[in-house]
């Protein structure tokens, strides 16, 4: 995993350096006098030759230092630590919603293949794949926050709610730990809309793969055999169809979770959610070298961990899979 991370970091490091851009000039804007631009460039070490910058970068990386962000003037690690919990909370809630919708929809449409229910569910999930996040997010805010007034507006917590002390950074968990139920409910309500948007969009992928995977299993001999033995249909579905179909589904769930954890810039923007997506987008706009490389390293780590977990689940799901 360390090699993957260092490899990716190296590639991104050199890509950012090759692009003909001046992050310091972009941050300081057109007004800054040239002496100031040069001085700040020296402060960040961007005046050194690229190989020297790379050596410094690797040495710092091994020490766990991702450098200082140019646009926030803080250590990149601090910035990411601050934003990752918000993204993690939203991604996890979104994944739960995606699973709650995606898996049942996939199973139902596979078992009822070509029925009107199947067509209806497939149309709904097609909407999920093709719907612009931006539009859906605003419509949900308009309906549930503005018109009906049953859900709170953007943000993670209403300003009048006492914020729980920061332990994990996940407001829902922190408020439970500190026994602050008002904050817990408020944070949960704030999660509903953004998590529904992301969850619905992601559910479409899960539903499609679930359907395809189950249809594949339905054709297998063991299913026909189980039916011919006269086993109850429900038992066949649960024990002989769903479980063997789970491997591709788990793979997709891993990918969906990974991409949710990268942050979702549009959803974050609409719901004023302080996550990783808007941080990385801003970093890219300003060519904030250290923040881009740091962010990519974190995303690479996330994907590696999610893949590892997916691999472990494989072993549990299919006893034939063994890792040496």
């Amino acid at each position: 995993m360390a090699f993957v991370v260092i490899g990716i970091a190296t590639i991104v490091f050199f890509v950012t350096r090759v692009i003909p851009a001046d992050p310091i000039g972009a941050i300081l804007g057109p007004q800054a006098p040239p002496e100031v631009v040069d001085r700040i460039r020296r402060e960040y070490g961007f005046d050194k030759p690229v190989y020297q910058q790379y050596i410094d970068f690797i040495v710092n990386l091994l020490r766990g230092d991702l450098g200082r962000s140019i646009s926030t003037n803080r250590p990149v690690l601090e910035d990411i630590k601050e934003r990752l919990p918000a993204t993690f909370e939203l991604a996890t809630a979104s994944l739960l919603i995606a699973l709650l919708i995606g898996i049942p929809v996939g199973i139902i449409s596979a078992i009822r293949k070509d029925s009107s229910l199947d067509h209806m569910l497939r149309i709904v999930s097609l909407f999920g794949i093709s719907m612009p996040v931006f539009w859906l997010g605003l419509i949900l805010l308009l309906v549930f926050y503005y018109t009906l007034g049953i859900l709170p507006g953007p943000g993670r917590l209403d300003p009048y709610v006492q914020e729980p002390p920061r332990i994990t950074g996940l407001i829902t968990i922190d408020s439970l730990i500190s026994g602050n139920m008002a904050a817990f409910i408020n944070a949960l309500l704030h999660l509903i809309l953004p998590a529904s948007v992301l969850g619905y969009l992601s559910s479409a992928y899960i539903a499609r793969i679930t359907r395809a995977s189950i249809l594949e299993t339905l054709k297998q001999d063991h299913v026909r055999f189980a039916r011919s033995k006269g086993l109850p249909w429900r038992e066949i579905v649960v024990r002989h169809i769903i479980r063997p179909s789970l491997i591709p589904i788990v793979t997709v769930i891993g990918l969906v979770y990974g991409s949710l954890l990268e942050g979702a810039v549009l959803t974050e923007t609409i719901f004023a959610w302080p996550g990783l997506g808007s941080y990385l987008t801003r970093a890219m706009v300003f060519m904030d070298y250290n923040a881009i490389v740091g962010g990519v390293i974190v995303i690479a780590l996330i994907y590696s961990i999610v893949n590892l977990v997916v691999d472990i689940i494989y072993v549990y799901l299919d006893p034939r899979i063994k890792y040496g």
Partner: protein
Amino acid sequence: MVASGSQGRRISTPWILSIVLLILLLSSWVYFLFSMRQTQQYSLATQPDTLVIAQDISDAVSMDPAVAYEFTSVLVVNQVYDKLVDIEPPDLTRIVPEVAESWSVSPDGTLWTFKIRQGIKFANGDPLDAKAVEYSLRRVITLSKTPAWLLQQFIAKPEDIVATDSYTVTIKLKEKVAPDLFLSVLAFTTSAIVNPKEVEAHASGNDMGSTWLTDHSAGSGPYILAKWDRNSQIVLKANPNYWRGKPAIDTIIIKHVPEPATQRLLLEKGDVDIAFGLTIDLIDQIKDKPGIRVISYPVLKLEYIGMNVNNKYLSDERVITAIKYAIDYDGIIKDILRGGAMKVQTIIPYPLLGFNPSTPFYRDINKAKQLLTEAGYANGFEIELAYPAGAHPQEEIAQKIQKDLGDVGIRVVLRPMAASEMYQRYRQQALQMVLAAWGSDYPDPDNNAKAFGNYRIKQLAWRNMWYDNISADLVERAFRESDRAAREALYKQLTEYILQHGPYVVLYQIVKHVAMRTWVENFVPDPSFGTYLHLYKVYKEAVVSR
């Protein structure tokens, strides 16, 4: 198929049961939400002592006056600190006393003496005296962070700022400068006065407390920085020791709402009092709604086209004049910006001293073609125009300019670039034509005059390789002129000269819009991007329940 037939029907009962269960669950959840509705309706914006502002605060880097240089941080610093002098919008040309109750300048114009108002206390109760002023201004120069150049352009070294007694400070300048110019820089947040004791108590290494001041305040202004959750909110609390009296609004919450459409929903719902980031489309949609007031005001920012006169074609002044006549200014302002701009063609924005309302250029294709023919380019030529990629409205304006210049035979090749790349190439004098904006850091005409007019300081004139000594000399004379009327006359001369000969097409001055609830009173917008926004004067009329 497997899933059809009698078996499928046999399991239908549990399916139906689970669907019924799901519906029950969902409806109980919706019922729960509706029952919560009452508590949801509690909104801070409707509290008379709380002001909630929706703004994109992602630009803020530090709330230390010696570091703050972005819109959000400058706005905050101005609420939590006092400066020697201040500026009261909407009149940006008049300097008013703040911590300094009076000042004088030596006959040679280089030694300034400020008398400090007695009785001012910092928020923690410590007295504000001349030593604090000396410490704060020296600190900016010693730390030498991004905005330090504002003071460094006039003051050579920290020791030139001296507290001569408890309530007198003298500042020695490198050279004589126009009084309004120097004072306008002292009115900027970089010159804010910090509490030396508190700052030094939190210093680590030789940072002079800068790390701590990033998200704390140690000022004497109307508010205290109570909390800054990055990318979430900034909370300001009234300073009970404020020397002008405790402000009417006790708590100001600047909520991070990056999306304009979301800002609009929050404002209309009454969950925020003021929305700073609404686009012109959204402004059009809400401006007539009951309970909403929109204020539009030009800000100190000009959108212009810079032309590098080192280019073979652009080195001929007739070509530049032809371009000035080829552009459809009214079309850009009316169709693309729809009220988001004011027609200005000179380099000093309204309402600064020296603003020149002259707009002699209009679209005249025949005149433009004739000028091109005289210059020997009857068949036109090809030229590149750089602009920030994906930026609105720059993208549309660039396309419009491509079309306008195309009509007179100039084939414009559009070169969208990331801002980071564009500024780098601009600084290297490597662009042919560029569509860019210039915002004034401090409300004195010198800021724009030297950028556009004086190549010697290596800003816009230099980047466009316009090494014009007449213009540069005028800028330097006005820089030193202490008589206000004479200075104004010099700027008149300079703006006319650049209008006719400069390698710039000033397209317009940007107009901003701020939307607020009608219960917000005494809000005076600041053309200087919030640098001189005085939120302590704002109050709310008793709010009727919605």
